[in-house]
């Protein structure tokens, strides 16, 4: 039994979701996206039309197993290259605003 018949069209609350995604939208963007994304949500719910009972979800193009390697130290990027693009740095560290409790 498909879900689409039973489930009403979901309403997306763009302001709420944008906050989850750490995006600070302007009022204009919020209202524009609200309309556009509501349309898109209304379209993508098409996937619920199919009966997928017993179908396994496909997360990857190739059969994936948990890939392990020996726990041995290897060379990585140098500290200098890692800090190359840092907006703010000091003493081999990235500088960020203080975390306010």
């Amino acid at each position, binding site marked *: 039994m498909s879900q689409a018949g039973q489930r009403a069209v979901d309403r997306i609350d763009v302001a709420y*979701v944008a906050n989850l995604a750490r995006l600070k939208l302007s009022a204009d963007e919020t209202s524009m996206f609200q309309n556009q994304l509501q349309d898109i949500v209304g379209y*993508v719910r*098409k996937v619920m039309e199919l009966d997928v009972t017993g179908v396994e979800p496909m997360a990857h193009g190739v059969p994936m197993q948990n890939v392990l390697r020996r726990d041995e130290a290897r060379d990585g990027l140098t500290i200098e290259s890692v800090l190359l*693009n840092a907006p703010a740095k000091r003493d081999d560290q990235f500088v960020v*605003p203080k975390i306010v409790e």
Partner: protein
Amino acid sequence: MMTDLAKLTAHEVLDLLKSGRCSSEEVVNELLTAIRSNDQQIGAYVSLDEEDAIAQARAADKARAEGGKGRLLGLPIAVKDVLNVSGQPCTCASKILRGYISPYDATAIAKLRKEGALFVGRTNMDEFAMGSSTENSAFKVTRNPVNRDYVPGGSSGGSAAAVASKEAIAALGTDTGGSIRQPASFCGCVGLKPSYGRISRYGLTAFASSLDQIGPICSDVRDAALLLDVMCGKDAMDSTTVDLPVTDSAAGFSDDLKGVTLGLPKEYFIEGMDPEVEKAVRNAVRTCKDLGAEIIDVSLPHTEYSVATYYIIATAEASANLARFDGVRYGHREDGIDPIDMYCNTRQAGFGREVKRRIILGTYVLSSGYYDAYYLSAQKVRTLIRADFGSVFKRCHAILAPVAPTAAYRIGEKVNDPLQMYLGDILTIPANLAGICGMSVPCGVTGKGLPIGLQILGAAFKEEDILRVGYAFERSMGQFSRNS
């Protein structure tokens, strides 16, 4: 002194380089001349370091004089601005990465570099590969070289435009939902999306990790085979790569298609598609039949669900992959009273509209209360889409289809209707969802002269099959892709 080097294919240039009839520096100088005179109008490149290009060329010429034998020694390649090349900018056409310099080579780049290739120029794209027209670049618009009022396609529009306008001999693109095949089709060049797992994604700025693939955009099928062979292979840095022997993909090339069975999926000749596109593709099918192929009708019944499935899965993965752009370690930073405020201000200032739209949609479909209905459902439908191809490939070696329902459209025509834009991807998306390989080869032009591509789809890891079909077809077309 050779002229018109820029108009040759990569394999032709390599022959000249190997036989000493030209130098890499001459090739690069020709490209730079072409770029200087044309790119103002085309906009294929977002950045180009001319001095560095010549230095690389000189080093390659020196290496060759000293006995260097790399398969691509001295060949300049343009790179979509989404792939890390050590010491070069990598902006993903986004303000959020303006000024970023790559500290390392992507594996695919390292493999090309090992064979002596040069990396000349960073090509324009839709921001973070999100788009189908290159109109979502934060920096500039790229124009279709065939008609500058038209889009080059996307998201690898810069790479396709560079190759089509002879501002590059060959280029790299990436394809998540069609972003190599569609711009290749719109610009009249060859574009190959390898099977998922063929080419390492290490060093490719991730958009959708279960869909992204790097691939060549070039002038002919032989070039595509060559670049594929160099770039592919298992990589410890990307656990999704497969352990398959690297072969000579051009070994099976033949002028005919005797013994080859090709499938025509009825769902891909969609209502409302441009009749000129349909005609060109059906003519191409007839050509393949004349070359000895058997043509059968096939069905991919879940095609109509592919756009919906894709825009759930790809945006969900993108929302996770783009979380790293927060102003902390690299890229643009806007100040904030605390880190979270900094993230919000940075991302607001740094991301363009389409990127924000997709992050929001992706966050939504993964969020509590919606995950099962959207994301999990989409993952299951994906299994059905893949199974459709599995059944069809039991009956034929490859599938022939259009690449897109239309040829290139006017710049600005679709920017205000995201959903309409998304629906244009219906014919390319399924291959990414299924993980199979696909290629676009030029097969005609519209009455207005805009290129039309023939899409050739093959089973996973059967690039040889689609390359063989593409080669024979291209040969019979008398090198249609060459605008001389």
